[in-house]
């Protein structure tokens, strides 16, 4: 009898853990792909304390935070750190009028509507969703960014959890 119970418990535990692992994998937490240029948020936002919205200005005005256009990069890198290898690459690309194809890290499915603008307006810090970006050399997904995670936050902050708030 005792053995039987043990076996049952172990099987249940393994199944439960497996399910949890699958659910967790689905969230992409920890996703940190190589980027075409090793841009470091730690240097820019952490060490040099450049405000997030300096580069990601559209976040305040519209849905998308966007990866900054290259003219924004070159605004500083015309004169700053021009001798660094990667900045030289950047400048060359800019001169050639060609954009860098960054790998997207934070992505919501296409059937969700998300506007950076209204989250910023409500005072949600960038780090709430993107993690401590200012400490990251390479951007990594910290939060699950799945529906339950969004809804949890909306509930805590008494934001709308109407379906069409995010889905239409």
């Amino acid at each position, binding site marked *: 009898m005792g053995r039987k119970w043990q076996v049952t418990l172990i099987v249940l535990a393994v199944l439960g853990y497996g399910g949890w692992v*699958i659910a967790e*994998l*689905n969230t*992409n937490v920890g*996703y940190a*792909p190589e980027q*075409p240029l090793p841009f470091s948020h730690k240097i820019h936002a952490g060490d040099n304390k450049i405000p997030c919205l300096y580069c990601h200005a*559209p976040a305040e*005005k*519209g*849905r*998308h935070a*966007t*990866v*900054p*256009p*290259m*003219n*924004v990069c070159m605004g500083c890198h015309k004169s700053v750190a021009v001798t660094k290898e990667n900045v030289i690459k950047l400048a060359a*690309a*800019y001169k*050639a*009028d*060609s*954009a*860098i*194809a*960054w*790998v*997207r890290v934070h*992505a919501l*499915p*296409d*059937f969700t*509507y998300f*506007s950076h*603008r*209204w989250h910023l307006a409500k005072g949600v810090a960038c780090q709430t969703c993107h993690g401590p970006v200012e400490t990251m050399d390479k951007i990594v997904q910290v939060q699950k960014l799945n529906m339950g995670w969004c809804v949890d936050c909306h509930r805590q902050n008494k934001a709308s959890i*109407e*379906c*069409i708030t995010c*889905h*239409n």
Partner: protein
Amino acid sequence: MSENGNGKKQLRYWVSLEDYSGDPAVEKTRQEEFYSKPESVMDELDRGGTAFSRRDMLKLAGVAAVFAAAGCARKPVERIIPYVNQPEEIIPGVPVWYASTCGECPAGCGVLVKTREARPIKIEGNPDHPVNAGKLCARGQASVLNLYDPDRLRQPVKLSRPGGMKQEATWRQADSDIAQSLKAAGGKVRLLTGTIHGPARKRLVADFLASFPGSRHITYDAVSEEEIRAAQEVCYGEAVLPRYRFDKADVLVLLGGDPLAGSFSPVEFARGFAAGRKVKDGSMSKVISFEPVLSLTGSSADLHYQVKPEDLVKVALGLASELVVIQGRSAFAGNAAAISALRPYSAATVEKEVGLPEGSIKATTAELWSARGKSLVYAGGMVAKDRSALGLEIAVNFLNSALENEGVSVDGTFSPSNQSQGSFADVLDLIADMRAGRVEVLIISGANPVYSLPSSVGFTEALQRVKKVVYLGDRVDETGELCDYVLPITHPLESWGDAEPQKGVFSLMQPALRPIFDSRSWEDSLFAFARTAKAGVLGNFTGTFQDYLKSVWQKEIYTRYNLAGSFEDFWKNALRRGVFSVRNEDDAATPRRFKIEALAQIRRPGKVDAPYRLSLWAGGIQQDGRQQNNAWLLETPDPVSKITWDNFVSVAPKTAETLGLSESDVVKLSVGGVDAEIPVHIQPGMHPEVLAVAVGWGRKKVGRYGDSVGTNAFGWGKIEKNRLLTSALPVEISKTGKTNQLASVQAHHVMEGRPVVQEATLAEYRENPKAGHPEHKEELISMWKPHEYKAEKWGMAIDLNACIGCNACVVACQSENNVPTVGRDQVARGREMHWIRIDRYYSGEPENPEVLHQPMLCQHCDNAPCETVCPTLATTHSADGLNQQIYNRCVGTRYCSNNCPYKVRRFNFYQYTHFYDEPGQSPLELVLNPDVTVRTRGIMEKCTFCVQRIREGRERAKELGKPLADGDIVTACQQTCPAEAIVFGDLNNPESRVAQMAKEPRGYRVLDVLNTHPAITYLTKIRNREKAEEV
């Protein structure tokens, strides 16, 4: 869209456009740096590239298929490609609007173009534009799809004639070759275009002709109103196309015309027409139609009489005779010339000859006379174009003058129309010149004569006698393939241009994006030819057409009207508003004197010596066929027959019985030796001796959607005395034994006595404003207390009196909500996806039915039956009263659709969005609205009350710190409805228009006995008649 302080749309305007130098290097970079699809980005990634030269692409949200829905594996790697230099006016995710002019037909309606990340995704009417006042027709709404038509020509092409061997050409090559021919032609140059009416465009054409002295410009419209102009000249001395004021007509008599569809200004007419149809203080306009077919306008008539096309003139003369001769009324009473001309057409004679009910002429005359000065007699269109068309128009002019409508509802002096100027006689002259070798260079633009001229005129043969034929078009179509060069033109949304649809209304066309393909506007092509030939004024002009346009506007508008302020301010303002009108809307036209001798020009009406006569007609969806590769339009049902993806011969039910025909049987029609096969549609309301076929179909070389869809009815046109006859053509009809299942969106056409569309006569309504509603025997009760809607509760009201059934809302919704087209086969299987449809019912006798149009869309019921049955909570009710459909939660049980009494839910039986995003369809995916989820296979969808617009309105209000006001949020269908039949708003706000309408005694809710509590109120259809039986 950005906002200024008062909450109105502030329009941005185009700042500069790169020079079209024609330089190969520039051309090449332009090609490279323009749009790419995500697929091609991925391709380059696969090859290991990381750097891109894509300046204009940030991200095509919504374009990438929603494949990442719930995969267990790592998501597919997505790339973000930022701008190299972000254009100042673009904020990703925020739309930018441009004011422009619709280029799909010469009506010249003003449009606002909504762009996202530099791509137009929606076109709406420009509210400031005097012609369309913010409204658009189905074709205008669909024109944004043409921009992304994958079958557009992507580079210049040189063809060898005949035989049509195609080869790519460069612009430089083409320009120099053409310039050489132009120089060598010695003035034997002809420019063949459709109607052109902007000052700059007209000036350009004049300058071009002047650059090659001796050359001529011929205007050709496949669907023209030249009889009206000709009759105006006979009657009043000047060949003008009057501006018909349907808004000023309390009584409207139609003699074969279909002003609301396929006419020269359908949106304006529909607006005016519907304004009169709305019941105000117990009165409304009265519409009496005499016509051989059941036209869209006729379907809204209070009284509908069937008349053979050749008898229309008799009816007109009968009315005139009754008025002037018998009743002795009007200024012409006692006029000897008038009496002698009209005496033979006494009402009794006409009624007998024409087969009208006794007293109908007298009654109609009485109606017209009682509303004199506030009525309108209108005739026109292809159906009226028989031998006596000119006489009919003269008689109509006489009636309007006699009824004192001249100068009131017929404006021939103050702001007449420029919207149709084609001359068929000129075309015949051209053909004669071509045959005789008097044409060396022929430049064709905005016309497709090989398709739309009957082969008997011999245009194709004559074309072979012309040394150099240049076709400025967007594809190698029927005409293009017989030319030496086909030079791709830009889409109107990529072009500069102008229009003057009515005198004093100057409308500006500006590009909303740079050309997608390697194309050039036809204006710039003319420039390039002249410049390369170094000929005349144009040869010396250094700028582009944009600069030319600006200079012409400076001279011909700014300077001419002595405008205050700087020209730059004027120009910026014109660009921002899209239109500049010097017309004072309060000014009235002056009545002109009717030349009584014109009556003598009315020929004694002839007889058609055949059992059946064929009438061609131009509908409001395909019109002359230039948009036949537009899948949205192909799938838009014909408003009366409800048939999509084909044309057909309409046959009266009685006739079908006589001939033993049933629906979809293929018959052979033979008109003067021209045979073609076409399926039969049994159309109630047709005159039994008339067969009718719509033109604008049966194109052979238009693209993947439109090729060989339908039968080209233009081919049946008959030339007689330099005139093109399109009606009363003797026709032989014979069965072929074949069938061709017509794809109709409606299978049942009568209401079976159900109170779906509730109607009453005006007399009944005056007596009891609730007339027409069935009486409820008991109150509807519920087990439950209803949910409370604390803030807004969205609702809609639809005035069935105003709705003309034109289908503009259907296309607007399709454009706004990424509704896919499914193709003919799927429509035939009952799987069309339109979120809003117009149900059309017939009532009364099948020989002469009454027609009812009812827009049907999700009713957003408070007690929504669909919600209760969905097992996954994919459809629930929002706190503001919306029946929300959450696509990504839907598993596709289809139970909701089964339980929807209105059957407004649409199921994705297949991956229908492949219409947009299959690789071969590029760049069609760019038309998708990124604010609306693209639905995948296996899920249900339906009208959302444009929830994205509600959100946008809310956000705008929040931004301005103001509460939402009534009218801040309009749905796409409401926005475009030319009849303003649809009103959307907050039912919780008692001041809102929708709440007012919902309370009206005419208001009723469809199937309210089911206790579904729909959020949509319909207003009873009122027929302006005394008694019910007076049909």
